[in-house]
């Protein structure tokens, strides 16, 4: 990724930006870690590969002082989904587009730690190697090979926009828009089950939530200064990890990101108890697509689905 390093050095040198948020090598085999690059020297630490899972745009909103300094112009390295978050922020007036410099990179998908762990039955993977279409996983007493596709995030497998649709610079060769014929396969299959079966699955799954709010806090679309779960006057929902309350938390969060979720999969990766979070978010995404023909974060001039109205929209949900 020398090209990326060179580009970042250049825009720092030209004072185009005050800081560039990108990924550096993490401390675990499958983890990249967010880094804040302010000098040309630090730019050397930048990487991009299948471990660069985080959606770094989340640092642009909510608790802006987290970076402790107020930066005027921020550069940010973006995958397809990440760049869509910037579009979202722009149409929602959270940032001024001209204050952000986007360095797009073509993304081939990122690893899902949970899938890796399942493949080796919970054993610890100490190293890996990519060999064309395959990945070789190495641990203390094992070495096994799997098709790369098996270890990518679910959101990457149905990603149509791997190329950062919105960018100021682009590094590498674009992959172009990917045709995904069955983006909603999982949702459709789940939809075919009876309502009892679906409810049973949701209850079983969300009963494990520990309410650490990692999903919410990594989510680029979740930037409310005060989340409804944190309000105590009135207190909207119970604070215990009781399943009813956990489901309500996830349902409301999903409704709140309706037409705003860019399916970056950050929530799935962040969840310490491996909840199936996309079963809700993808369903909401599909509804928005079908009702309003809207995909979040694609068109920087289009008003968000939930903030605009048009006469021809289906209104069956009102009429019952």
């Amino acid at each position, binding site marked *: 990724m020398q090209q990326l390093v060179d580009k970042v050095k250049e825009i720092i040198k030209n004072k185009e930006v005050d800081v560039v948020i990108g990924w550096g090598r*993490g*401390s*675990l085999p499958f*983890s*990249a*870690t*967010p*880094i*804040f690059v302010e000098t040309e020297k630090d730019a050397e630490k930048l990487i991009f590969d299948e471990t660069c899972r*985080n959606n770094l745009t*989340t*640092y642009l909103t909510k*608790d802006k*002082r*987290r*970076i*402790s*300094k107020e930066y005027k112009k921020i550069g940010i390295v973006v995958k397809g989904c990440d760049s869509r978050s910037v579009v979202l922020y722009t149409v929602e007036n959270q940032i001024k587009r001209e204050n952000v410099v986007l360095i797009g990179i073509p993304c081939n998908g990122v690893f899902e730690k*949970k899938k890796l762990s*399942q493949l080796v*039955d*919970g054993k*610890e993977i*100490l190293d890996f190697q990519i060999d064309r279409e395959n990945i070789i996983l190495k641990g*203390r007493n094992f070495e096994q090979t799997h098709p790369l596709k098996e270890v990518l995030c679910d959101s990457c497998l149905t990603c149509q926009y791997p190329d950062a649709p919105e960018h100021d610079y682009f590094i590498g060769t674009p992959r172009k828009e990917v045709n995904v014929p069955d983006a909603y396969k999982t949702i459709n299959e789940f939809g075919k089950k009876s309502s009892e079966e679906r409810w049973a699955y949701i209850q079983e*799954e969300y009963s*494990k939530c*520990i*309410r*650490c*709010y*990692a999903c*919410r*806090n*990594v989510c680029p679309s979740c930037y409310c200064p005060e989340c409804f779960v*944190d309000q*105590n006057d009135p*207190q909207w929902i*119970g*604070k*215990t*990890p*009781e399943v009813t309350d956990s489901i309500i938390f996830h349902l409301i969060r999903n409704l709140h990101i309706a037409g705003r979720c860019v399916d970056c999969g*950050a929530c799935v*990766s*962040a969840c*310490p*108890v*491996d909840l199936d979070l996309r079963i809700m978010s993808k369903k909401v995404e599909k509804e928005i697509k079908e009702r309003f023909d809207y995909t979040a974060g694609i068109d920087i001039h289009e008003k968000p689905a939930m903030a605009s109205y048009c006469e021809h929209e289906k209104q069956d949900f009102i009429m019952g």
Partner: protein
Amino acid sequence: MIKIKKTDLHNFIEFLIKDYNVYAPADVGKKIAFKKINSAFEIRHDITNTHLSPKNVFFPQSEVMFQYSDDGLKIPERNEKPIAVWGMRNCDTSSLIMLNKVFGDAHQMPDKNMYKDPYWKMKYDNCLIFGQACNEPLSTCFCNWFDGNPFAKKGADVFVVDTCDHFIFEGVSEKGKAFLLKYKFAEEATKTDLDKIAELKKTAESYLPEKLDVKPLYNKMSQIWDEPIWDEISAKCINCGACTFVCPTCHCFDVSDEGKGKKGKRIRLWDSCMFQIFTREASGHNPRELSTQRVRQRLMHKYNYFMDNYEQYLCTGCGRCVQVCPVNLDIREVIKQILDYKISRNEDN
């Protein structure tokens, strides 16, 4: 020391279940955590460290403190069997000692009784802890930085080593020794077993990271609390509570009433110093408004404040926070970063 064949473990566990509510590493959804088991077959032996810490056994994520209604308050009583925990590694048994200092001993307080936590005590006081040797520490483990060892027995009543075909038992506390005496179906461990244990210990230790001297951490942190290093450390933290919830030693809690009208319950539940609302007052004022302040609070509590109050660090090096952090904010690196930090302030000023 006694031993039983691995294939006979279910007999032992059945014997244990007669007198105790037994908790052990078992499947909880897609993760492994300590949960109450009904049979030895639920136990997961093939893991080194559970994904979630065992603190929930004695300090559940949510716990009823009392119920209220028109008839007054009802405090839950514990009429169940005492608790036994199977399969706790040294990092976890040590964590119980730390938590007991907070909830059980309250040794620093003038009026000791007043500050003991009845909910902790009713579970912890009669428990039986089976510590287990950690044959294969993970790459995220760093117990050796905090006086831990994969084969250390501290905090255990009975210490168990899995030697592949056998479990070797050693009574550590009086309580543990007494329990082992009651179990009649074991053989005596032999010299060969002891040799095997020594060998396993050596292998396990070889997996640990290089030992780091963390003693200077306390002083260093006292000196640097107002230095810019905290901005660097906290920059990428997204303030979720994952690290605090999986930590075996984090013990901050919230108290909340749930119910309708005059009937309901007062519960306590895990809370996290990472959350903004943790310290936000009704007036809106928040003494730890910034992410930096909250990250500093968590680290200072672990490696400085707890030392002031209880003469040890509040960390066992279990590595769970390293595994779950969504942004790979690795506490081992933070510790090194703090130790290496050159103080910029001129002490004379």
